[in-house]
């Protein structure tokens, strides 16, 4: 790529300020300069203003003040149609595809090639295939979208933008939903786009991805741009410091483990899904007081089912789980909570919270029926509010009022609400599934420290996470799940070679039953 081309500014935001009608200042005099043909990473904690800035560039929001320039010319991007006409395409985190349509139909949607009054399906497929080949975005044009994997759906979104003539691509946390393999494919596709003259703006939480893919990186914090740097002149620590305004300690302060008696004992636990698939296959392990037992594994290898059986959301086919010697209630979430199992669910928006309800309502779902929250048959609202205020303080939840709806919070603060509720339930066992997924670095650090503190106080914690660094960092013992069974138990996670771990996770290696018995 010649230097001349690299330096030409393609899109620029100058002194952009956005104040939402509810008074939230989301962008405060933001300047962003993106040059032609670069991969520009945009990083920042949840609520730093990245999404708002991108929404302004894509016409989903209008700036309160400031101006957007495209190739040096001031432009008014009133709505996404205008953005598309100007050659700006956006791939949202939640895909905007019609699930029952084919890939090709989705790509050409609304600008279909026609033959008479009908859609020219053959041409749509050919055009899709041609675009896919040109940019190295592998898709099956004739497959129905809801039958193709997530990675391909994302490529369909990119093709959609390409088909509409986009030159600038805004990718909003594109890797959040991808497996490591799919992420690799995506990065290859992004490089392909850039090689053919396109420009990519890439929002992410993951610093590793920034260093891996981007040419330049802009860091946002508190609605402002902290700075833009060339990626090869920066490092992860420096970016982390810019993001949170202080050094993030990548290593949690973790006192040595003091293991107590076994709290949870799981023996031959088996769960068969409705489809007949054996999702949990004779799983046995213990969790002890004062330890974090981590469960690593590629997602979809039985972790979800294990957690849901242990928390009373599903019933096991056979096998036992006992808490302090008493059986864990089956298929009864309240009973499971009452014996002392707290649960941070992996899907916080679907299971962990009601986003239209107030923060205070969200914080009492496990205790509203008990004193002091209910007395003489009535809810004690002051108690619920006090409870919420105490938790907002203790867990550093950023909000102006405990009665605000949960959806007014950023992702990290929503997760803190869930964490606060589960931590204060005074559990015997805490099951934390993906506790920091999609959460900003500041909140990750906070939640990690909370987990460690609780474990040091003697709580038994079962940690399930797809983030390898997270399980390796927090766990006192590590268990690897593959295809519904336990592939390996590691008594000391610090001593594991990552490569070795990968082999167990991918089913290439399996510890013998005797070995595992010895390691319990």
């Amino acid at each position, binding site marked *: 790529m010649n230097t001349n081309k690299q330096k030409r500014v393609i899109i620029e935001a100058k002194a952009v300020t956005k104040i939402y009608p509810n008074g939230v200042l989301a962008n405060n005099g933001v300047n962003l300069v993106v040059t032609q043909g670069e991969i520009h990473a945009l990083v920042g904690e949840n609520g730093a203003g990245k999404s708002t800035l991108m929404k302004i560039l894509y016409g989903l929001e209008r700036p309160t003040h400031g101006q957007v320039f495209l190739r040096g010319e001031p432009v008014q991007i009133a709505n996404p149609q205008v953005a598309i006409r100007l050659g700006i395409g956006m791939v949202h985190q939640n895909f905007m595809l019609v699930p029952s349509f084919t890939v090709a139909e989705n790509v050409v949607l609304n600008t279909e090639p026609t033959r008479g009054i009908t859609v020219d399906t053959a041409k749509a497929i050919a055009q899709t295939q041609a675009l896919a080949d040109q940019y190295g975005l592998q898709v099956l044009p004739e497959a129905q979208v809801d039958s193709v994997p997530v990675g391909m759906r994302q490529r369909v979104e990119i093709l959609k933008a390409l088909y509409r003539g986009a030159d600038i691509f805004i990718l909003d946390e594109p890797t959040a939903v991808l497996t490591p393999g799919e992420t690799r494919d995506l990065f290859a596709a992004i490089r392909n786009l850039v090689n053919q003259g396109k420009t990519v703006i890439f929002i992410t939480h993951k610093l590793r991805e920034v260093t891996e893919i981007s040419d330049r990186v802009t860091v946002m914090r508190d609605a402002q741009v902290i700075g833009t740097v060339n990626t090869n002149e920066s490092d992860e620590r420096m970016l982390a410091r810019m993001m949170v305004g202080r050094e993030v300690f990548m290593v949690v302060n973790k006192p040595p483990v003091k293991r107590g008696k076994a709290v949870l004992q799981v023996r031959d636990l088996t769960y068969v899904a409705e489809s007949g698939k054996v999702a949990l296959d004779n799983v046995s392990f213990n969790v002890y007081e004062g330890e974090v037992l981590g469960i690593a594994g590629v997602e979809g290898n039985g972790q979800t089912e294990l957690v849901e059986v242990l928390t009373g959301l599903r019933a096991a086919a056979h096998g036992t789980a006992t808490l302090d010697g008493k059986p864990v209630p089956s298929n009864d979430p309240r009973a499971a*909570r009452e014996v002392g199992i707290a649960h941070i669910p992996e899907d916080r928006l679907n299971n962990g919270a009601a986003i239209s309800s107030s923060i205070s309502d969200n914080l009492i779902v496990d205790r509203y029926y008990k004193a002091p929250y209910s007395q003489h048959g009535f809810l004690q609202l002051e108690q619920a509010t006090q409870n919420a205020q105490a938790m907002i303080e203790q867990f550093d939840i950023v909000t102006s009022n405990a009665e605000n709806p949960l959806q007014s919070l950023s992702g990290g603060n929503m997760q803190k609400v869930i964490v606060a509720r589960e931590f204060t339930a005074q559990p015997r066992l805490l099951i934390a599934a993906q506790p920091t997924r999609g959460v900003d670095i500041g909140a990750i650090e906070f939640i990690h420290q909370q987990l460690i503190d609780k474990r040091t106080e003697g709580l038994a914690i079962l940690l399930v996470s797809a983030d390898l660094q997270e399980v390796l960092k927090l766990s006192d013992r590590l268990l690897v799940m593959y295809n519904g069974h336990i592939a390996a138990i590691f008594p000391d996670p610090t001593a594991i070679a990552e490569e070795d771990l990968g082999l167990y996770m991918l089913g290439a290696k399996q510890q013998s039953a005797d070995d595992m018995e010895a390691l319990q």
Partner: protein
Amino acid sequence: MTATDLTTLNTPPSTRRSRALLWMLLGIVLALIFSVVLTVHVAAGGITDAASISKAIAAPAFTNMLGMNVLVGLAAVLFVNQTGWGTLRVILTVGAALLIGFILMLLISHDPLKAYNALLTGPLSRTNRWGSWVEDAMALTLVGLSITLVFRAQLFSLGAEGQIALGAMAAALVALYVPPLPLGIHIPLAVLAGCAAGFLWGMIPGILRAYLNANELVSTLMLNPIAALIYSFILDRIKPKSAGFTVSEPLTAALLPRIIDGTRVTTGIFFVIAAVIITWLIIQRTPLGYEIRTIGANIKFARYGGIDTKRTIVLAMSVSGVMAGLTGVYLALGIHQKLILGLSGGLAFEGIVVALLARNKPLAVPAMALLYSYLRVGGPIMQTDASVSLEIIRVIQSIIILLFTADGLIVFIQARRTKPKPPISEQDAAHIAEGAAAQP
């Protein structure tokens, strides 16, 4: 000015509270003035001169009428208090609907102004018409509350029709066949019977939904003809041999006392007030209400949190049935004073409109019931006073309903997103932008 100064731009909560209180007081004062004017107007048949006032005060039951009108005014204040800026939206919707209706009227009536005048002021022109309005609003309030309860749980119910019929039947049977008792015992007994009937008839679709996953929309609808048949079967058995129509003996015991001459306005108003307060208490202040709100907000979250979602579904439907049953009691003991076929007259479905208009807030239901029944009562008056045929009136009413519900449904679907007033003015925003630009 820096970003941190932003917090000072927001009004502190204590000031906000006292300001809200001030508005509330102003509203109440306005409502009181309004109710006095309204009462004088209705009782004296229009305000012409000072003599109208003395004429009105001399009218029978002036105090009771004034009391009812005070409640009407308070219902409006309560609505504004509950809905906030949404009130403006309701007013705009009503205005738009009436405007379309007026355009239609221009096309079909010789004297459109007279016709519209009849629709808009007719219900206040005579005491008996005013009475029909208030009576109807009381019934609509009860049905509206019933629907509000199921809507809060994100369920649906078309079953109020059947619940009303069986509630009326149960109450009337107590009135007819329980040996005469003091009114203070007999009425509550009849009310209890009616509520129990509604509870049980509401429980059936609740159980079907919770345990067999049967769509409650279908089951509640299908239970209506069954209830209607039970109703007419029993009515046929108990009707006097001499009666030419299928109608019961006039009820003599347990009747709700009428409190304003020339109308059917009864002490049933106390049941209506109690029902509004109880529904509000249930939804906002009881564990059951928390469960109902939570399954309505996200049923998966409710189950994860340990709420017995099946039990909550059954109870939400049953308690909704109680309110519909109470409507039946009110119609039997207060309005008709006997059992007739087609007792509810389609009231049940209009309760859905009222619940939607009130955005499922129990305290906002009475005002919307009053608004809606005003139009229900105004239609026939337009027919008699301006000889516009009833079919045309139905068309106009439908336009109004359509606009109302379209507006209500959109909000219902958007999960009631509130749009608070921006606390920052354009000017402040400019200051902030300047401040930002001045930063290094």
